[in-house]
C-alpha cells in the first residue's frame, strides 16, 4: 500500500530507490527531481504513517539523476525512434515558449511521435516515470499553456502527425491530425467550395484550437471551436485512447452518453492529448462584402452593433477598433483613417442578401452618428479595407518598438459592453499605459493590447493590475475572464473567482479521476488544491 501511495505523495520527484528498515517502520526514500543538468534535495513528508520525521538526508549524486533521465530517454527512443527524441537546448527552449508575454519554462525532453499509438506508449512511459506530459501543437498560444512549469516531457504531436485523415464534402466535416493548421485545412477544402471558419488570427493547429476552445472574428455567425467540433480522439495520461463522441462518430447531433467532447474542448492539455479532431466545415459564401465605418465614440459603435444584432442581421464579422488602435494602424500601414473608433464589418450571403444586409447596417450606423461608410466587394479591395484589422497586433507593437503586449480577453453579455469598455479605457489612462483595443463586439469579447517594456517589471505589474481589474469587472457583469485565449497560468486565480470554490473543486475531482498522478500539463487552469 505504501509503495502504491508514494508516487502520489512525491509531488514531482521520481522514485529512484526505496529501502525498508527491518527494525523500525521507516521508509527510506531517495528521490530526485528530473532535471538532468542540476540536482536538488527532496525532503519527503510521508503522511499516513504514525510519525513522519526525516531521519537523515543525503543529496542525490549527479549520476543518480543522469541515470534516471537517461533511462527515460532510452525508453522514449524505443517507441518513437532516436531521431524523434531531443533534449537539445534550442529544441527544449522553443517548446516551452509560446507567443504570449509570460516567459515559459523549458521541458526536459521533447518527443515527436508519429501515430496515436506512439502517443499512447509515450504517455504510459511518462506515467511509469511519474514525469509531466505537456502536449504541443503549434506553440501559438498566448497564455503560457505549453510552459513546462514542473519540467517533464513535451509531446510535439504536430511535426509528424500532419495528415488530413478524411474530408466529407457532402457532410461538411473533416478529420484532421494535430499537425494540420487551420490555413492548411482551408487550402485543402476550398476546391470543394468549403471552408473552416474559426479564425483566431494565428495559423494555429486545429487540434490545438480544440484544446484551448479557440474562437475568432467569425464566431458571431459561425460559432467557436465548441460549436464546430464533432468528435475528438484523446490519449489519456495512462495511455488509454478514447473517442469523445463515439468511435468514428460524426453525426451532426447525438444524445449518446456524457458530452466528453465538451469536457476536453478547452481543457488546455490538462486532461489528455488530442490526437485527432473531427471538425465542421461550412459552405464558402456566394458573395462577401466588407465595410468600414467610423464613429465619434465607442458607445456609438457598440450601440450600432447591438441594434444590428437585434435586427437579426446575420453578420459574419463585426470588429471594433478604438481610436488608439486606429492611430497605430494608420502609422503602421500608411493609412489615413480618422482617429476615432471604427467598426470593421463583413457580410456573407447571396448577392441580394449581402446587398440588403449592407443597406440595413449602413442605415443603423448613420442613425448612430456613423461617418463615411466605405465598402468593397472585390477580393483585393476587401483585403485592403481590412488591412488595418489584420495587422492590428503588429501595429500595436510598432507603437513602442521593443515592447511586448499583455493581451486581455474578457467577454461579457453584449449589453454590458459599452460600460465595460468605457471603464477599461479610463483605467488604462489612469495607470498611464498604452492599451489599444480590438473587439469581437458581436460576441461581447474584446482584447486590449497593454504594452509594456520587458525590462520594466513595474510596468508589467501595472498591466497585470489593469487586466485583473478588467476581468473582475467582466465576471461581475455576468461575463468571463477569458473569452477565447484560455486560462493557462495567468488567470488561475480569476477562474477561482468566476466559479467559486465548489465549481473549481468539481474540476479538480474530474482531473483527479482522469489524471491521478497530476501529470497532464501541471500548473495550468487551476491549482492542485
Amino acid at each position, binding site marked *: 500500500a505504501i509503495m502504491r501511495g508514494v508516487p502520489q505523495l512525491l509531488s514531482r520527484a521520481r522514485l529512484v530507490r526505496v529501502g525498508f528498515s527491518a527494525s523500525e517502520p521507516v521508509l527510506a526514500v531517495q528521490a530526485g527531481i528530473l532535471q538532468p543538468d542540476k540536482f536538488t534535495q527532496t525532503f519527503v513528508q510521508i503522511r499516513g504513517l504514525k510519525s513522519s520525521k526525516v531521519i537523515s538526508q543525503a543529496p542525490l549524486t549527479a549520476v543518480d539523476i543522469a541515470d534516471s533521465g537517461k533511462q527515460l530517454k532510452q525508453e522514449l527512443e524505443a517507441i518513437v525512434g532516436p531521431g524523434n527524441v531531443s533534449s537539445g537546448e534550442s529544441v527544449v527552449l522553443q517548446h516551452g515558449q509560446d507567443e504570449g508575454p509570460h516567459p515559459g519554462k523549458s521541458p526536459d525532453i521533447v518527443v515527436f511521435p508519429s501515430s496515436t499509438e506512439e502517443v499512447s506508449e509515450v504517455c504510459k512511459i511518462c506515467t511509469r516515470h511519474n514525469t509531466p506530459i505537456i502536449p504541443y501543437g503549434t506553440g501559438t498560444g498566448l497564455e503560457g499553456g505549453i510552459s513546462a512549469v514542473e519540467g517533464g516531457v513535451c509531446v510535439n504531436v504536430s511535426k509528424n502527425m500532419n495528415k488530413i485523415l478524411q474530408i466529407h464534402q457532402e457532410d461538411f466535416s473533416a478529420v484532421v491530425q494535430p499537425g494540420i493548421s487551420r490555413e492548411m485545412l482551408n487550402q485543402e477544402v476550398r476546391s470543394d467550395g468549403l471552408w473552416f471558419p474559426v479564425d483566431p488570427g494565428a495559423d494555429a493547429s486545429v487540434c490545438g484550437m480544440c484544446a484551448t476552445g479557440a474562437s475568432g472574428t467569425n464566431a458571431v455567425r459561425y460559432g467557436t471551436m465548441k460549436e464546430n467540433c464533432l468528435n475528438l480522439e484523446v490519449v489519456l495520461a495512462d495511455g488509454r485512447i478514447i473517442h469523445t463522441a463515439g468511435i468514428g462518430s460524426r453525426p451532426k447531433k447525438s444524445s449518446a452518453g456524457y458530452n466528453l467532447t465538451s469536457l476536453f474542448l478547452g481543457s488546455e492539455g490538462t486532461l489528455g492529448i488530442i490526437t485527432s479532431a473531427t471538425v465542421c466545415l461550412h459552405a464558402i459564401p*456566394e458573395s462577401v462584402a466588407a465595410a468600414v465605418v467610423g464613429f465619434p465614440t465607442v458607445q456609438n459603435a457598440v450601440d450600432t452593433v447591438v441594434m444590428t444584432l437585434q435586427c437579426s442581421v446575420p453578420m459574419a464579422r463585426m470588429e471594433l477598433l478604438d481610436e488608439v488602435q486606429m492611430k497605430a494602424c494608420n502609422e503602421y500601414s500608411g493609412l489615413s483613417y480618422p482617429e476615432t473608433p471604427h467598426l470593421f464589418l463583413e457580410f456573407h450571403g447571396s448577392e441580394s442578401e449581402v446587398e440588403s444586409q449592407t443597406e440595413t447596417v449602413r442605415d443603423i450606423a448613420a442613425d448612430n452618428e456613423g461617418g463615411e461608410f466605405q465598402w468593397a466587394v472585390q*477580393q483585393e479591395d476587401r483585403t485592403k479595407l481590412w488591412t488595418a484589422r489584420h495587422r492590428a497586433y503588429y501595429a500595436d507593437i510598432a507603437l513602442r518598438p521593443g515592447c511586448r503586449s499583455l493581451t486581455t480577453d474578457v467577454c461579457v453579455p453584449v449589453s454590458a459592453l459599452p460600460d465595460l469598455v468605457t471603464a477599461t479605457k479610463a483605467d488604462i489612462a489612469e495607470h498611464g499605459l498604452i492599451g489599444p483595443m480590438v473587439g469581437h463586439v458581436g460576441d461581447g469579447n474584446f482584447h486590449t493590447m497593454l504594452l509594456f517594456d520587458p525590462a520594466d517589471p513595474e510596468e508589467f505589474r501595472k498591466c497585470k493590475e489593469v487586466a485583473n481589474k478588467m476581468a473582475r469587472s467582466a465576471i461581475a457583469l455576468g461575463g468571463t475572464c477569458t473569452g477565447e485565449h484560455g486560462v493557462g497560468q495567468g488567470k488561475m486565480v480569476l477562474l477561482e473567482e468566476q466559479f467559486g470554490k465548489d465549481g473549481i473543486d468539481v474540476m479538480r475531482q474530474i482531473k483527479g479521476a482522469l489524471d491521478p498522478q497530476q501529470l497532464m500539463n501541471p500548473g495550468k487552469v487551476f491549482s492542485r488544491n
Partner: protein
Amino acid sequence: MALKVLVGCKRVIDYAVKIRIKPDKLGVVTEGVKHSMNPFDEIAVEEAMRMKERKLVNEIIVVSCGPAQAMETIRTALAMGADRGIHVEIPVDKMDTFQPLHVSKVLAKLAEKEKVDIVMLGKLAIDDDSNQTAQMTASLLDWPQGVFASKIDKTDAGLEIIREVDGGLETIRTTLPAVLSADLRLNEPRYATLPNIMKAKKKKVEKMTPADLGVDMAPRIQIVSVEDPPVREAGQTVADVDDLVAKLKEKGFSSA
C-alpha cells in the same frame, strides 16, 4: 462589341506538395499526389470573369490539355464562372513528352476555330516554369502579346496592359485580337462556391485530341535527367576568430 475569351488551364502538382523524384530520374512522382489548377491560370480565369462582369466579355471558353483528370481542372474553371470547356485529351503515357510548343499549337488552332478575341493564359506553369506558351501562341497566330500582365483595360482601339518587368511597370497598347498572360498581382482569384460547383456540372465540355486539330505530338525536347538539389552538408563550428580565418585560408577563400 463583347469579346470572346479562350482561357488555358493546366493541371499541375499542388504548390504545397513536397516533390519527389522518380527512381528512373526522368521525372517526378505524380501518382497519388495532390494536383490542382496552376495558380497563374486561376488568376487568368478570374481576370476573364471580371471582364465578363464589366460586360467587356460575353463568353469564356476554358481549355485544358491532359489525361482524364484534366476534367477536374476544367470543372474548377467552370465553377469559377467560365461558360463552357474543351478537353484536349492526351494519354497519360504521352504526358512526359507533351511540351509547350504542342500546347501553343493546340491553342492557336482553337483560337482560330472558336474565333476568339483574347487568348488568356497564366504566365508560367509551376511545374516546368517554362514561361513559353503565351509567347509561342502569339507568334503562331501572329497576334500581339501582353505577357506578365498586372492590369488589363479595354480601350477604343484594343487593350492597354500594364506589365511587370524587372525594372518596374511597363504600359503597352495592343490591338485585338491578342494573347495575354497573367502575372501574380493581376487579381486575387475567387473561390468556387458550392452552388457554382453544382452549376458547373451541367456546363458543356467538348472532347477532342491534338490529331483532331492537326497538331503533331512529336517531342522536340528530351529530358536527360531530373535530380534533387545537392544535400546540404553539415557545417563546421570554429573555436574562435583565428580558427575561422585559418579555415577560410585552408579552403582558399582568402588571398592573404
